[in-house]
């Protein structure tokens, strides 16, 4: 199976007036299916730019991006939009749920927008809510859900259907620690189901849920953690 995300030599340069701003410099990042990678760095380090390029929302100035085996360079606008709808799920700090739709309808919406019949989309939505432990919230409207539940519904929406790549920007931003933990546990469960996740954060507690943490500084990936040992090696004996 191909990697969910491959970034090779990706650079992004903006023009700010006459000044060149190097938001990303020669970034290499591969995320395999079922893995969670956290990108940690201070504000302005390029974390969010990395996520928008990984999510096919922006194009790199240099370098190549492949998502689930598909090369972004040379894709038509329509193909790119289809890839975004079908393969990539996005989670942002503010939940972006539509207030007039129930949790199940919100989760089913991306599939309906992609042309799936309403009944089938709804069934797929209910299935993912059930898998992620939210079945009893399916018929509630966003204003009947707590902040933590809203964000968990947003994650369900981001992984519904055949999504391969979940991209999250500070997904627990406004939540307390209990709800933040529930959100991370849910992303982890989605990964156990085969989705790859990239979580951008400045928060080490959040990042520590990931299989691998990469550190970004001034647009460059400067370091990463070693693979995680088993917890048994942690406790003194």
């Amino acid at each position, binding site marked *: 199976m191909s990697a969910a995300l491959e970034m090779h030599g990706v650079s992004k340069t903006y023009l700010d007036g006459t000044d060149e701003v190097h938001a990303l410099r020669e970034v290499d990042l591969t995320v395999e299916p079922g893995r969670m990678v956290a990108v*940690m760095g*201070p504000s302005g380090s390029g974390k969010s730019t990395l996520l928008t390029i990984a999510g096919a929302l922006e194009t790199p100035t240099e370098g190549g991006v492949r998502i689930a085996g598909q090369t972004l360079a040379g894709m038509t606008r329509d193909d790119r939009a289809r890839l975004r709808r079908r393969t990539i799920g996005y989670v942002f700090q503010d939940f972006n749920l539509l207030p007039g739709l129930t949790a199940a309808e919100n989760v089913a919406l991306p599939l309906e927008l992609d042309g799936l019949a309403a009944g089938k989309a709804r069934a797929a939505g209910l299935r993912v809510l059930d898998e992620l432990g939210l079945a009893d919230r399916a018929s509630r409207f966003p204003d009947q859900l707590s902040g933590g539940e809203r964000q968990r519904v947003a994650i369900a929406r981001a992984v519904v259907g055949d999504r391969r790549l979940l991209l999250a920007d500070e997904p627990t931003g406004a939540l307390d620690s209990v709800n933040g*933990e529930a959100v991370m*546990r849910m992303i*982890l469960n989605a990964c156990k189901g085969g989705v790859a996740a990239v979580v951008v954060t*400045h928060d*080490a*507690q959040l*990042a*520590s*849920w*990931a299989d691998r*943490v990469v*550190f970004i*500084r001034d647009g460059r990936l*400067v*370091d*990463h*953690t*070693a693979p*995680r*040992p*088993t*917890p048994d*090696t*942690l*406790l*003194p*004996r």
Partner: protein
Amino acid sequence: MSIRHALLALLSEGPKYGLQLREEFEARTGEVWPLNVGQVYTTLQRLERDSLVESDDDAEPGPQKGFRITAGGAEELAAWLRTPPDLSSPPRDELVIKVLIAVRLPGADVHEIIQVHRRHLVELMQQWTRLKEDEGDLDLGLALVVDAELYRLDSLVRWLDTADGRLKRAPAPARTAAPQIRRRTGVRR
């Protein structure tokens, strides 16, 4: 960690044997504080000397000897639980000292040194977090220990992040000036 008071707490539930005390101590501290049986008996002897526990007079020393808490022991335990630990002066934190030394060391790349420590702390945090993945299986004592450890490590990462940012903004001369910490904060020698 006061083994003395932990043993008093266990005995406040009722009389117990030494070996039982060791097993219960380890279970309640999420098994992160292993205790050898020798420590348990030495501590019990001192508690008995101070009249905070009593033992079965006729039993031989060893695993069959039972202990119970006295009224004085119960008072001592209640007072200890409410006495704040001494956090008034900064600990001699090795990480802080390394960064302070690196800042003034000619030729040292302090940002790179900070990153080495940041990575190590995050790796430790990943190990602790992994224990939380299956919440249903997590013993309450261990969950509290894991949270405490994660917050402690997280505070160090945050300090490194803050130090990194502060050093990046600081003009060059600020990195060579002598620190004024003692006069300003009254840190004890």
